[in-house]
């Protein structure tokens, strides 16, 4: 599903990614590790289609509608409620049976009781859970998750573990993390960026 050959990325004179080779098959669970500044986020943005490589070749065999991207930021509006945010994305992604799907996700990530509250009143962990709902809303074929465990408490992290285990083998997952042990059981391959 993802094929990268000598992919690099520059921002002006600054090189943030160099010579990355990566093959991720459909249904694989790829883990990207590396220290801060090694280019994990840049690589994931490239794979999500938010940026184009400055050098090398990158092929992602998934249309825009089939990609779910979890960024450092939750990509939701703080002045809207969880329900309103998910409804907006549900409409844009043309999610069938949108309301049922939104309700199911909000219940699964324990946000149902606060669905009418504005996101600005959420804790960082609750916002991250909402971001995960947003990513999963349209049942993407390719999940690109940039440090998904950030800000999640134990319960939230366990929810994400269960969700990823459920998707394992069915969806292609590309996840960056500082804690590869957390997803070691699911990982089918690992890429360490220097």
């Amino acid at each position, binding site marked *: 599903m993802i094929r990268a050959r000598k992919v690099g990325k520059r921002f002006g004179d600054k090189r943030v990614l160099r010579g990355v080779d990566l093959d991720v098959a459909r249904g694989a669970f790829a883990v990207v590790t590396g220290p801060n500044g090694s280019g994990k986020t840049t690589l994931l943005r490239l794979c*999500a*289609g*938010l*940026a*184009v490589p400055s050098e090398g070749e990158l092929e992602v065999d998934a*249309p*825009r*509608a089939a*990609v779910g*991207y979890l*960024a450092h*930021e*939750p*990509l*939701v*509006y*703080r*002045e*809207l409620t969880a329900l*309103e945010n998910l409804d*907006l*994305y549900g*409409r*844009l*992604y*043309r999610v069938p049976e949108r309301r049922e799907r939104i309700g199911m996700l909000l219940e699964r990530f324990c946000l149902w009781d606060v669905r009418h509250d*504005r996101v600005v009143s959420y804790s960082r962990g609750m916002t991250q859970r909402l971001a995960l709902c*947003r990513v999963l809303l349209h049942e993407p074929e390719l999940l690109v998750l940039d440090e998904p465990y950030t800000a999640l408490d134990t319960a939230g992290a366990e929810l994400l573990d269960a969700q990823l285990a459920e998707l394992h083998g069915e969806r292609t997952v590309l996840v960056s993390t500082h804690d590869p042990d957390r997803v070691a059981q699911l990982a089918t391959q690992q890429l360490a960026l220097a």
Partner: protein
Amino acid sequence: MTYFADVGALARKDLLLELRARDTLPAMLLFVVATFVVFHFSLPAHSSQLAASGLLWVAILFTALLGLGRAFVPEREQRVLDGLVLAPCDRSAIWLAKSIATLAFLGAAELVALPVFALFFHGIGAATVAGVVLADIGICAVGTFLGAMAVATRARDLLLPLLFLPLAIPIVVGGVGASVAGSPGRYLAFLALYDVLFGLLCWATFEYVVTE
């Protein structure tokens, strides 16, 4: 029809955000009324109607600039633009929806501003109102496009007026002409032509503004 459904969902979101945050419209209203008060006292007594008509367009342009400067603030604060760009909808829908929302704010500000102008200076004719409507469309189309360009840069607050004001000169020419000329038809046609040309240009090229 899905394109217009996307535009509707995005525009509704912008109106809802303004209803909640009340960041833009109150500032535009205060600004335009304060500007007319300043103009009222700065113009010499018995100044010509021509001068006052010119000031109307200056006030409209800078009030619009205030709204345009805030148009992409919600997207910038949480980098939500990435989320919208990734969505499978046509990216021009983002521009069109934002233009419609900004047009609604500018129109609402003018609903107050034009009577205030009439109170302080002189009455407003149908040609001026038509000119304002046509000018608003051009201002919001071009300004929203440039706002999306500026929001990606560090000097966004500086860049938007620098890019927008030169492109708004034809709008001022058409607007003032429609307000003061004996036969305003050709000025209104000029404004309509500007709207069509720049609207199509912005619609067709917006994708390149929000993607690499």
